[in-house]
């Protein structure tokens, strides 16, 4: 088992960065003029907050991602439906070029990882003032028939491991890697990834969202992942990063990368969306050192109920972007 020595100071958690705005309710959100708000509705109540916006206060323009397929999306802009290939530099470039607004809000609440990640990557490449929006759920749905690794009932079958569009790393020579799962509640997903990649125990560095969205969530995370954490004996190597902060997780990933010179970071963003954002940003900034490993679960439409805080992450100027 891998542990840090007891006297080693823990990485101080970054203070609430000024780069994050928080709104107790989404209807308190106000956007600057000349901004665009890109979003998608989903079966979850928290992804319907857009319907409650005062559209005069929120943005000059709304773009709705209407359909999210594996490799393509359809979106509605100014009443017209367009398609976009997620693995096309020219499509992504054109998407952002058409949006002639100073500030771009990309609401990731209702968007799948495989959709927002390439949009975000292209926005950064194009030098846009990109701000990510995320609405926390009020509650997650409990599993009516819970097992050790499935206390919550959040996703159905998985499509299986595949790179996020545009994020494939085809480096095959380097067998030296450290596996960094960003943990959520579904231990079964961690278990499956450990089973698929079989990393040695000293090469697993799990990251747990502490503080969580709710005070008790870290305990759910530990409980849900208890079996794979104990079987792989990696629990002692865990790091912590605020569950709602992509910048905190970025800092932790940077620390791990610095400690593991010469090793590729295989990061599995199977926890919170803000953690996944941090992982994607870290990949963008350290392309050949990082591989994102994602299992593409089919999220249950009623996996959460209610909506809680709204968070807006300002990326322009942060992390060298």
């Amino acid at each position, binding site marked *: 088992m891998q542990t840090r020595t007891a006297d080693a100071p823990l990485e101080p958690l970054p203070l609430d960065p000024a780069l994050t705005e928080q709104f107790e309710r989404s209807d308190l959100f106000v956007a600057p003029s000349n901004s665009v708000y890109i979003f998608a509705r989903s079966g979850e109540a928290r992804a319907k907050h857009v319907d409650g916006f005062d559209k005069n206060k929120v943005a000059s323009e709304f773009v709705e991602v209407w359909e999210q397929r*594996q490799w393509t999306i359809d979106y509605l802009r100014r009443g017209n439906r367009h398609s976009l290939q997620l693995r096309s530099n020219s499509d992504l470039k054109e998407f952002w070029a058409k949006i002639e607004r100073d500030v771009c809000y990309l609401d990731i609440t209702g968007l799948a990882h495989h959709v927002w990640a390439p949009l975000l990557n292209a926005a950064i490449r194009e030098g846009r003032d990109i701000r990510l929006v995320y609405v926390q759920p009020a509650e997650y749905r409990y599993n009516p028939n819970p097992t*050790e690794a499935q206390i919550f009932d959040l996703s159905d*079958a998985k*499509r299986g491991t595949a790179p996020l569009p545009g994020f494939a*790393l085809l480096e095959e020579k380097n067998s030296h890697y450290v596996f960094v799962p960003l943990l959520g509640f579904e231990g079964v997903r961690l278990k499956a990834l450990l*089973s698929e990649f079989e990393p040695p125990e000293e090469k697993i560095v799990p990251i747990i969202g502490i503080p969580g969205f709710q005070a008790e969530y870290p305990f759910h995370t530990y409980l849900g992942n208890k079996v794979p954490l104990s079987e792989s004996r990696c629990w002692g190597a865990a790091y912590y990063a605020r569950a709602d902060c992509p910048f905190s997780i970025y800092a932790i990933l940077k620390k791990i990368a610095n400690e593991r010179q010469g090793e590729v970071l295989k990061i599995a963003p199977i926890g919170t969306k803000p953690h996944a954002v941090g992982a994607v940003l870290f990949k963008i900034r350290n392309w050949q050192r990082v591989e994102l490993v994602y299992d593409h679960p089919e999220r249950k439409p009623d996996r959460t109920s209610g909506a809680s805080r709204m968070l807006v992450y300002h990326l322009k100027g942060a992390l060298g972007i």
Partner: protein
Amino acid sequence: MVNPDDAAALAKLFGLYRAEWLNGQLYELFTEPNYFPEFRTRKPCVLVGGRGTGKTTVLRGLSYQGQYALQGKKPEAIKSWPFYGIYYRVDTNRIAAFDGPELKPEAWRRCFAHYFNLVLSGHILEFLTWYGEMTGEQIKISEEGMKKICLSLNLPIAEALPSLVAELERARIAFEVAINNVGDGIPSGLSMQGAPIDAISTVLCENGVLHGKQLFFLIDEYENFSDAQQVVINTLIKHVKPYYTFKIGVKELGWRQRTTINATEQLTHPADYELINISEAFTEDKFREFATRVCNERIKRAPASLANLDVCTLFPELGEEEEARLLGLEEAGATLRTHVRKEGTSQDRRITEGISDAMLYFLDYWAKGHQEDFFATLRSYPSARTEWETRFGNYFHAALFSIRKGKRGIRKHYAGWSVLTRIASGNIRYVLELVHKSLLLHFEDQPRAGVSISPEDQTTAAQFVGKKSLTELEGLSDGRRLTRLLLGLGRIFEVMASESEGHAPEVNQFHVQDAPIDSRTSDAVNNLLKLGVTHQAFIRFSANKLADPTDTRAYDYMLHPIFAPFFVFSDRKKRKMTVSPAEIIGLVMNPRAAIEVVLKRSNRSADSPLPDQLKLFESFYIAN
């Protein structure tokens, strides 16, 4: 009393049961399986086996890093090796990029073929660099040879090995960018399928630095390739050149495509490759012998106080009558003797005085099963002693499951080295897990910490490994359905085992009826059975050696015996029941009702209390 630190060190030696976890120790602990010599030949070879059966260890043992370690780390010997193995594990996170609506299948095939060329070329160059460093020989590639290699990969002509490595890395990055933007068009500069492998191997092995040698491409987890990708690799295998060959590790049913890119051309055994199925290569005895060697090899590395142990001593065999006593036979016997004293005749009492508790219990078991009067059965014993001894020999094992029917605690023991290796059924990882968990339990129990592990600790360890294997299935893409099916079948076999009186004993197999069903149900059943076989939920067998491997109905299925201790049914390969496809689906969708239907057919009910270790799943059995 064993020193706790020594005990912990011994247990730790068994805790590393995945090849990937062993790192430097993988080769130190390498134990050659009996099929290894066949695998070392110059011919392509396919090794079929479930997770944990040792494929990765064998493939990595053949790699140049493995051979170097296994042959005593002698740099001077490297040049004399007849082959150099290059290990490659198929990573789904990489190869899944070669799919999508952006390109037509033919264009994806070309992209994937180029990618595979880059991968193998990169590995060969990595090996050459290592070879040069280890042997001290400067790797020289002739100008003409370098041209051939570079042209085959569409690279600028390099001058020497380092610049070739750098050019290849640049090409790899450029290709990665192109694949990440494949919606903008097919990547340019694609190499021809297999051409660079031919070029490099010919340049090196014909007259170059590896003159007369052969390269082994060791491809692990072949099942991870998509069907279309398997066709590409099949083509390379079909047309191997003398300077290289392929050694493939694949899960059962994971080799889904046998054609090459010429759809009329098939890879056939033994013309094109040697086939080694680990489950067939290992009979029960051969596997036990192999498992013993593997475990004793690890024990030798334990601290001196324990290093001379033999694994067979750690796991002493448990006879049936001895086990019956552990399960409470004496209590059952005493109850029966009291009953005879109170209700029987003096002749009955005389008969009971002359027979053991085990036989007495068995006579009662038999009488109940055949709805005969106990005393009539008892009185038949003296005149048919031989017949009863035979029956006892045939059915007493089944009767063991009834002794503690419905009671708390262990209801049946799974103990003894031959039993533990049998429930592992060819899976060496299971053996190591069983030993590891048993040792941990044993040494936790300090007062009893001698050198042999109690049947209770062995059984608890076996239940743990069974449960762990069950929950691991949950993570598969269709794992929830498979887990539900297993929970349903396991409960059926458990009830059948505990109520075996008067029924076929030791039912732990099933055959799916060939009933007419709609194609959707048929596909769902076939997919579940295939998934179960691939991931070792089931073991399948057919009386017909020529059975089509893809015809799921042509086979009988047994729950993998690793699940036997968890559910409590017989681990021995015995009798089967027949279920309909609709019942298979019922066990997944509506398990409670389906379990009742199947059990009712043999006049049993699902009302008996669950074994303790199944209580975790109580809501599954009640709510669904």
